[in-house]
């Protein structure tokens, strides 16, 4: 025992000499140990969240990436049905799925329409939202009533609104065509003609997206100090000049955020397209996510590999977009 003690104290002394006034014993794991002993509570609090996130986000993500490198489909994945035990027989195929997606015209064609859809939806929604927010920022009679009315589309569950629109758009029995017929206009094939169908899905998405834009921008507008406008007015700035030089810069931080969010949401806006047209007529309104869904659930045999490939490509595209967007903003002196 005595020998042990002395050798320990010698080692300790050596350590102390080497590292000056350190109270540590010099062994690397003790730092961790100490941090654990002082912060164990924080670690314990964080652990469940970490585990849950790893399970519900990490696992599917990596599984998806893995599947996109195989030729998995409904026929060759493992399944056990009652007495039938069928083992997995799919194989690793490397980047074949990606080559196929990126060289064929289906992915690029769908991507083209997805971009048109995203840009059209986001720009129209933003302009409308900005206009309405400006209107509601003035003192007008019944302001709170209008505000409530304009937020309504947001309060209704998305699929309910979309189904309502589907009834409105019905070519023979829909309300829109009945109104048009009253004005002597021929029925419009809202969802049956490829061009009209594209117009229709964008219109519904704009209708659904305006409330969010409006509320966010209204909040931004209200944070712009009124003195700025007063001063500008004193200097004889016109309404347009005030809007350009005070309102827009004042809204920049809000609008950059909502545009980024709205772009990501619209790019992946599954319910509107799926419930309104199912990507039809033909494939005219199919965006990347609805097409990926179609691969995984609607065609048979279900093509899990191709679907995951498209999913990964969507993720990469959106990450690229966010990175570029952020860089552009940073150049303009914006930080978020």
């Amino acid at each position, binding site marked *: 025992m005595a020998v042990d003690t002395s050798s320990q104290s010698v080692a300790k002394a050596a350590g102390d000499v080497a590292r000056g006034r350190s109270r540590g014993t010099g062994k690397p794991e003790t730092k961790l140990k100490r941090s654990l002993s002082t912060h164990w509570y924080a670690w314990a609090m964080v652990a469940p969240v970490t585990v849950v996130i790893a399970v519900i986000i990490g696992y599917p993500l990596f599984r998806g990436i893995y599947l996109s490198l195989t030729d998995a489909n*409904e*026929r060759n*994945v493992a*399944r*056990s*049905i*009652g*007495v*039938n035990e*069928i083992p997995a027989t799919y194989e690793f195929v490397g980047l074949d799925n990606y080559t196929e997606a990126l060289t064929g015209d289906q992915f690029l064609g769908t991507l083209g329409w997805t971009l048109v859809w995203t840009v059209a939806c986001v720009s129209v929604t933003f302009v409308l939202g900005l206009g309405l927010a400006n209107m509601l920022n003035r003192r007008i009679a019944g302001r709170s009533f209008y505000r409530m009315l304009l937020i309504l589309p947001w309060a209704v569950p998305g699929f309910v609104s979309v189904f309502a629109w*589907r009834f409105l758009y*019905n*070519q*023979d*029995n829909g309300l829109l065509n009945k109104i048009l017929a009253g004005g002597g206009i021929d029925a419009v094939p809202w*969802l*049956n*003609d*490829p061009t009209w*169908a594209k117009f229709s899905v964008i219109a519904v998405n704009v209708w659904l997206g305006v409330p969010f834009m409006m509320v966010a921008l209204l909040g931004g507008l209200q944070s712009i100090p009124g003195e700025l406008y007063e001063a500008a007015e004193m200097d004889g700035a016109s309404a347009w000049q005030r809007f350009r030089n005070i309102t827009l810069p004042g809204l920049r931080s809000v609008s950059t955020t909502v545009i980024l969010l709205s772009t990501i949401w619209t790019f992946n806006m599954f319910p509107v397209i799926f419930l309104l*047209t*199912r990507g*039809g*007529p*033909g*494939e*005219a309104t199919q965006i990347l996510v609805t097409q990926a869904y179609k691969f995984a*659930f*609607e*065609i*048979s*045999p*279900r093509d899990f590999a191709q679907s995951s490939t498209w999913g990964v490509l969507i993720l990469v595209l959106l990450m690229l977009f966010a990175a570029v967007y952020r860089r552009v903003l940073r150049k303009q002196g914006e930080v978020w």
Partner: protein
Amino acid sequence: MRRGIAAIALVSALAVSATACGGDDGGDTGKKSSGELSGTVTWWDTSTVGSEDKVFKKIAEDFTKKHPKVTVKYVNVPFGEAQNKFKNAAQSGSGAPDVIRSEVAWTPEFADLGYLAPLDGTAALKDEDDFLKQAAASTKYNGKTYAAPQVIDSMGIFYNKKIFKEAGVEVPKTIDELKTVSATIKDKTGKTGLYLRGDDAYWFLSFLYGEGGDLVDAKNKTITVDNESGVKAMKVVKDLVTSGAAKTDATDGWNNMQTAFKEGKVAMMINGPWAVADTYAGPEFTDKANLGVAPVPAGSAGQGAPQGGHNLAVYAGSKNLDASYAFTEYMTSAETQAQVAKELNLLPTRTSVYSQPGVASNEIVGFFRPVVDKAVERPWIPETGSLFAPLVTEYTKVLTGQTTPEKGAKAAGDAYRKLLKDWK
């Protein structure tokens, strides 16, 4: 070592609870040991909601009169969703029904994926020889029988006799006649002649067969959808729509078609016996005699209607296999089929039922019987259930002018070639 003990304890606790779960389920099985069937049989029906489903629900629940210890859970799943829903449930191993009403084309596909229990030698196939040959064909896969045929059907023209009288026209027998009849109807009554579903490729089949085409030729392992006849058929339907002889829809086709026909807005539609009960419910057909049924118009190669129908199949993972077999037998028995034929005008799959009183005199059944005999059977390969998805996309594209008939047929053929490797 302590940790080791804890792990073992945990594992064994899990194992115990797992077997306990299994035990619970086991207590519910319809083992024949007691001589009496028990348990729950969940049945997914896909019949038309609002008309057919009521009758099927009642018949299904009457099963408990014979087997009081069995509970029948009737679930109506819309036909358009059932194939996917069943696959989701069957693959994940939870939520699948014990018995499913499987469309004929789905049956070999489900069997191939291992979702169905083989029925040979079970109670489900009683008097197997009584089944019509064409009806039984789709239930066989790899030498085993995976389903019992419940109903068989084909397609014909449904027409509104009142409108035909008003316009002074006869039922068209060929596509050319169809066009002139439609034109006369439009002139005289202002109504559209034919409603052609543009969102479901099944409605394209009689035109494809009429031109002498087919989806695939299973015997010679050849894809035929994009040959000359296939292209011609695409041109025919396209021409019907652009010439105004027919109207079409790319969304909600079934509802729009039924509404338009039931309200007398169109004079004709192509449909099968499954639509009869729903059609009778329409204001235009309160007098049932107003509904006329005729064979589909012939194309350049003759008349051709597809043979369809539904089977009852048992899920391989069912916990109550014996009760499910008995239920399948009951639902496809001669008595049940006779009742369904009388009440819903659906065609029985058993030869003996056709001679029963009430069935023999049924006008719709009487009309469709010879049609079914002549109807074109699809190839009963596992991929049969996969052939419509690519076709419907191209068919809709052709009808809405997004592609030409030639390109549409070619694209469908290419998709088939991808699906059926090493076919020509």
